[in-house]
């Protein structure tokens, strides 16, 4: 029986202490940004300055404990990186509050941060087996569409800055599209996980392209088109672009066919040309991307952002010593310009590397996890970060035309923050399932008790005949008796 004693599965380290260790410098980044801002602007720390950092530390500790208890094998890097980004965002929002005066964006954001961590904990506690979500593709789709349509409803929907994408309940405005982003990704993933094989292999050949069968592709196409059409009508082209890219990438992951990416790029070029012709503000965006300095008043925001980053240089002005509040909307769309001004190119590149780390861990999880739903889910969510960060930071730095997407974890906005914490939680849950040891004995025992006694083999003369054999095969194949050695 000694062999049974050695029968414990090979020990796979949980890496929770590594995560806790990384959380210390992660917290230190945001807190020192906050402290340096106060020192640089006023020369002293405000009374009870330690209160907010202590609250943040408690919040992070709570998140860590939830991960440790519920998903012990989770990736150790995701949570610390998210905490660093959140800390940088809070410190910069507080710094902008100090410059503008009379606003308390940072405090509101802190409240949302608590809600975000609560959402993170809720997902980890109740969704540890994420595969239950795979059963309801159409229900998820309907929920996602309702969320997308909510801003168009009469009482709760509100119009801010020309886009009708907010709802307002009890004084708090919320962007349901952020939650819809998660729900629709789940819907795509659960639909495609079931049908990826038929999408990839069944259908007509058209040269190098294999066209999928209509009945496989129509539901997913309808899902996607409905989402994009709603967003275009709400004048939220950034989110429409995000959905489009997400759809293309998930089709590519599901089918392993590069033709989806090629076709998607052509479709995007066509749609972009049409939208450019008919939507006036898109022309303005493109113009301010290519020739910002030709119209100082129209492109004021982009120009100020450029000046700010140029003034920041390599290492920035230092916390609190630039003037990022000259840029309109510095705390939402242009927060990366504000950070570029105060912590410089080196700091801003560091932030981009942090996003890249989240994405790489997400993709690593997608490679590691065994079920295709988990693969699609993590690949999809990773790509959401890729597209969002590329679009908004690329827009601010004039690599691309500016699209109004939120900067994940950094910029002001509760709905985005809560949604991104939930996405981080899903990545952690899937990475736990992917990294934990495979060998488990519990499920077999249950099956044993329930079913093995059903068949009475000794009563049969010519070997066992089970109840589940299809009768039609009896005449075409022969009965085998093998392995009786």
């Amino acid at each position, binding site marked *: 029986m000694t062999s049974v004693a*050695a*029968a414990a599965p*090979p020990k*796979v380290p949980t*890496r929770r202490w590594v995560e806790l*260790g*990384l959380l210390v*410098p992660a917290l*230190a*980044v945001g807190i*020192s*940004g906050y402290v*340096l801002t106060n*020192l*640089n602007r006023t020369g002293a720390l405000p009374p009870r300055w330690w209160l907010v950092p202590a609250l943040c530390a408690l919040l992070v500790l709570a998140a860590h404990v939830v991960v440790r208890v519920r998903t012990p094998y989770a990736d*150790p*890097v995701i949570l610390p990186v998210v905490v660093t980004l959140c800390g940088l965002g809070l410190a910069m929002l507080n710094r902008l509050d100090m410059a503008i005066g009379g606003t308390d964006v940072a405090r509101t954001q802190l409240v949302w941060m608590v809600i975000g961590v609560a959402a993170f904990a809720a997902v980890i506690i109740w969704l540890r087996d994420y*595969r239950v979500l795979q059963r309801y593709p159409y229900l998820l789709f309907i929920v996602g569409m309702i969320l997308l349509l909510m801003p168009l409803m009469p009482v709760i929907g509100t119009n801010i800055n020309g886009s009708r994408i907010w709802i307002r309940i009890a004084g708090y405005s919320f962007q349901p599209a952020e939650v819809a982003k998660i729900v629709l990704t789940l819907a795509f993933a659960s639909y495609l996980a079931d049908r990826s094989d038929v999408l*990839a*292999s069944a259908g007509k050949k058209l040269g190098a392209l294999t066209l999928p069968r209509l009945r496989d592709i129509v539901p997913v196409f309808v899902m996607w088109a409905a989402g994009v059409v709603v967003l275009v009508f709400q004048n939220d082209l950034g989110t429409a672009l995000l959905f489009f890219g997400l759809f293309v990438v998930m089709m590519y992951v599901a089918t392993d066919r590069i033709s989806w990416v090629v076709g998607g790029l052509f479709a995007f070029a066509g749609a972009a040309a049409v939208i450019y012709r008919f939507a006036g503000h898109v022309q303005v965006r493109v113009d301010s991307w290519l020739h910002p300095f030709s119209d100082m008043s129209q492109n004021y925001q982009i120009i100020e952002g450029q000046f700010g980053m140029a003034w920041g240089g390599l290492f*920035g002005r*230092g916390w609190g010593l630039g003037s990022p509040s000259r840029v309109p909307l510095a705390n939402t769309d242009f927060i990366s310009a504000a950070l570029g001004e105060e*912590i410089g190119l080196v*700091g801003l590149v*560091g932030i981009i*590397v*942090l996003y890249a780390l989240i994405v790489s861990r997400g993709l690593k999880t997608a490679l*590691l996890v*065994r*079920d*295709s739903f988990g693969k699609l889910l993590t690949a999809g969510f990773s790509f959401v970060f890729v597209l969002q960060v590329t679009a908004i930071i690329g827009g601010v730095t004039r690599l691309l035309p500016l699209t109004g997407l939120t900067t994940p974890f950094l910029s002001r906005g509760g709905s985005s923050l809560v949604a991104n914490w939930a996405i981080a939680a899903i990545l952690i849950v899937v990475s736990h399932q992917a990294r934990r*040891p*495979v*060998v488990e*004995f519990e*499920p*077999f025992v249950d*099956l*044993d008790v329930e*079913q*093995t006694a059903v*068949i009475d*083999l*000794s009563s049969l003369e010519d*070997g*066992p*005949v*089970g109840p*589940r*054999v*299809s009768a039609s*095969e009896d005449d075409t*194949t022969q*009965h*085998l*008796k*093998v*392995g*009786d*050695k």
Partner: protein
Amino acid sequence: MNSVSALLIGGLKIAFVALLWLFIALVAVVVRRDLFFVTTPGETKALTHASAAPNPKRRGWAAQRPQLVVIDGAGKGDTVPLQGELVVGRAADATLDVNDDYASGHHARFYRDDQSWIVADLGSTNGTIVNGLRIARPTRVGDGDIIRVGRTNLKVVEP
């Protein structure tokens, strides 16, 4: 005095960026360890097999009991202990999830009576093949038999 404070501010500014990159470097170290030193579940199994083969006296824990080994297919190297009853298939709730497009969701069932292990086809689309022959009835299998499910070959290993 003024130049001293300017120097201090400049130093703190650099120190902050250095802290941010220190964090990134630490994360990079963790990611690297994850790649090279921490064995993920798949790698652990591969190691068990490699060490089990050459030295029969020090066979791994898994080799001591009957098991089902994926010898060809997407999950090559995977093993499942043969005990109780197990279902092979593509469905997420199958005991051995073979990740094979040519396998059915619940493709075949393994169970045993007092003599040996038995494999039964669960009405799969492509059938279950034992040692090259498609089975019509639950079939006895033992050590060394190869069961084909979709494009995945499974081998029964009994000590």
